[in-house]
């Protein structure tokens, strides 16, 4: 059985259920739980649910410290760019402790951050910056594209004994989808085939999964069968599922809303080029954001972002198809 809820509600559901299950789970951040009517505050009390000042270095550093001291903090950071204010704490503190202590210390914490608010949020609040965190040893990175994955990955993130960056997409917050009833945990490092196909493999991340699915649907109407794979976590990254798909299709197009050289697409392209080269019947193609900042104005914003049309053109080029007449 399942229930239909928005993406953001699925994330909240996972946090609430994990807080019910494990009293070591803490939840805190800016501009939350300021009213006594806040449902998390009412259910779990002010020890476990707290509003903080705008102090990301302290927020993430305190999560690290509380994790070392035995708790399992979830830090609500709202916008992914706010992580950058505290980059040392994100990439170079808690991520190192387990290794440096020869396993004596672990840091079970979750940093929740929204990305890709490409709805006029302009230069400093729209980035798809997950790629820059995927090569940090000790850090896991989840990037859900559906409400079910959002809940399942958050559940796993809270139970994981390592620092996890959980990236939620701002444009998907109100998108509804079916979420399994009861306990729902999605394992890290296991890609999901969002659509099966035989002619070409599309691998897309986060919000771009929906761009890829839209393109696959329009190509299906022309008799082109496209497989769409969502890695769901980019660290760890399930390369095997991608390789086995490419072994069947021989064609790979990558869709990512990040800029080209800091995209997940670039990493997957390198992996497939090294490990799946003999399967490829055409060059790998990356459909990413153009290498610029995001403008406020809508036509300029749209110009630099990947869209279904750009994905369809890349698929046509890979398969040697004539462009659609539209």
């Amino acid at each position, binding site marked *: 059985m399942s229930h239909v809820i928005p993406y953001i509600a699925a994330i909240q559901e996972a946090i609430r259920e994990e807080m019910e299950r494990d009293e070591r789970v803490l939840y805190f951040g*800016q*501009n939350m739980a*300021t*009213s006594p009517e806040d449902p998390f505050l009412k259910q779990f009390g002010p020890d476990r649910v707290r*509003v*903080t*000042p*705008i*102090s990301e*270095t302290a927020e993430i550093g305190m999560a690290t410290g509380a994790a070392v001291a035995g708790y399992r903090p979830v830090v609500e950071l709202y916008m992914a*760019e*706010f992580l*950058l*204010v505290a980059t040392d704490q994100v990439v170079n503190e808690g991520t190192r402790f387990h290794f440096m202590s020869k396993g004596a210390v672990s840091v079970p914490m979750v940093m929740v951050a929204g990305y890709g*608010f490409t*709805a*006029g*949020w*302009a*230069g*400093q*609040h729209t980035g798809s910056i997950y790629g820059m965190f995927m090569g940090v040893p000790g850090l896991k990175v989840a990037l859900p594209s559906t409400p079910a994955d959002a809940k399942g990955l958050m559940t796993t993130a809270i139970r994981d004994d390592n620092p996890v960056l959980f990236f939620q997409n*701002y*444009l*998907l*917050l*109100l998108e509804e989808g079916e979420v399994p009833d009861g306990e729902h945990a999605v394992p890290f490092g296991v890609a999901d085939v969002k659509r099966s196909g035989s002619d070409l493999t599309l691998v897309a991340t986060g919000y771009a999964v929906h761009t890829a699915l839209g393109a696959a649907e329009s190509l299906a109407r022309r008799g082109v069968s496209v497989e769409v794979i969502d890695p769901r976590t980019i660290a760890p990254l399930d390369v095997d599922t991608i390789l086995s798909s490419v072994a069947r299709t021989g064609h790979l197009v990558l869709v990512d809303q990040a800029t080209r050289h800091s995209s997940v697409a670039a990493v997957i392209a390198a992996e497939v080029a090294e490990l799946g080269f003999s399967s490829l019947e055409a060059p790998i193609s990356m459909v990413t954001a*153009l*290498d*610029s*900042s*995001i*403008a*406020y*104005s*809508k*036509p*300029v*914003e*749209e*110009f*630099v972002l990947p869209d279904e049309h750009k994905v369809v053109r890349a698929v046509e080029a890979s398969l040697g198809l004539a462009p659609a007449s539209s």
Partner: protein
Amino acid sequence: MANANATDGSAPEALDPERLVWMYTQMYRIREFEERVKSTFTEHPGILRGHTHLADGAEASIVGSVAALAPGDQIVTTYRCHGYPIALGTDTKRMMAEIYGKEGGLCGGLGGSMHLYDVDRGFLGGSGIVAQAIPHATGAAWAAQIRRQGQVVVCFFGDGASKQGAFHESLNIASLWKLPIVYVMENNRYQASTRTDQEDANAASGEPLSTKAKAYSMEGVTVDGADPVAVHATLADALARARSGTGPTLVESLVYRLSAHGNLIAPPGVPLNYPEHEAIAIFGNRDEYEAALRGDPVPRFRHQLVTEGTLSAADADAIEQAAREEIDEAQRFALDSPWPAPDSGLAYVYA
């Protein structure tokens, strides 16, 4: 850059009637501009995107501060940045066009409401990220110190920003290096949807936020930010100290933001609007908000000037009518301005 008006740090002159009327004019222009931005959400749905933050309630603080600047002084702001350039003389047509995302905007629609710049008038910009422009302002003050032309930088930010490392690190260096800078913290009582006493140790202890200056051995002062004359006097003192090389000042300017923190935060497809103020929407405190409306600095200053005989009611009406006409024209210009070329998105990545 030459600065003919650099002073020797002596006491500032009192404001003459003409200057007081100028200040009221700027306050009213800012209010009219912000009201027009706000009404755009309902009158022209879809034009405004992303997040817009208004200065209504802070006009007296903004204008009192800007009125104290000398030519050549510079400012750095936050993303709540519409008021300052209006007081500095930036063309409201180009400002509105920027906020509407149009080619005729100050930044050709690339920046939007949160990212305004007018370098020629001394407005070096700000940051969309809380507190992160405070070190930029401090660096500009270092540049002014090196130039030795008597220029000062005024750095505007909110109460929430003072809980960032960027704030504390900057104030320490500015005091240590005696940089020519004035930090103006507009304490509008709410850090987005959090009350100041929920996130600030000084506020929770019943102390002013200017107490933070003590930690950096600099002057700290709290002023009624709804009184433009008081703000002007405070800034004039602080600017004189900065100009003379005595060091920076932290000014806490007490204002009350009359609109919500910003417009509704929602994905595309959801109509954007301005929600009710947090005092009511989150804390159920209608009395507080209504008291703030009664203390609205714009009508308060008009009343003061008219009562004192500095400004006749007829002249005040004429100022307000002229501001409405100006903003009408700004809005028409913004609506009529074309959209920017899509590929302008690649034109300014590198200098």
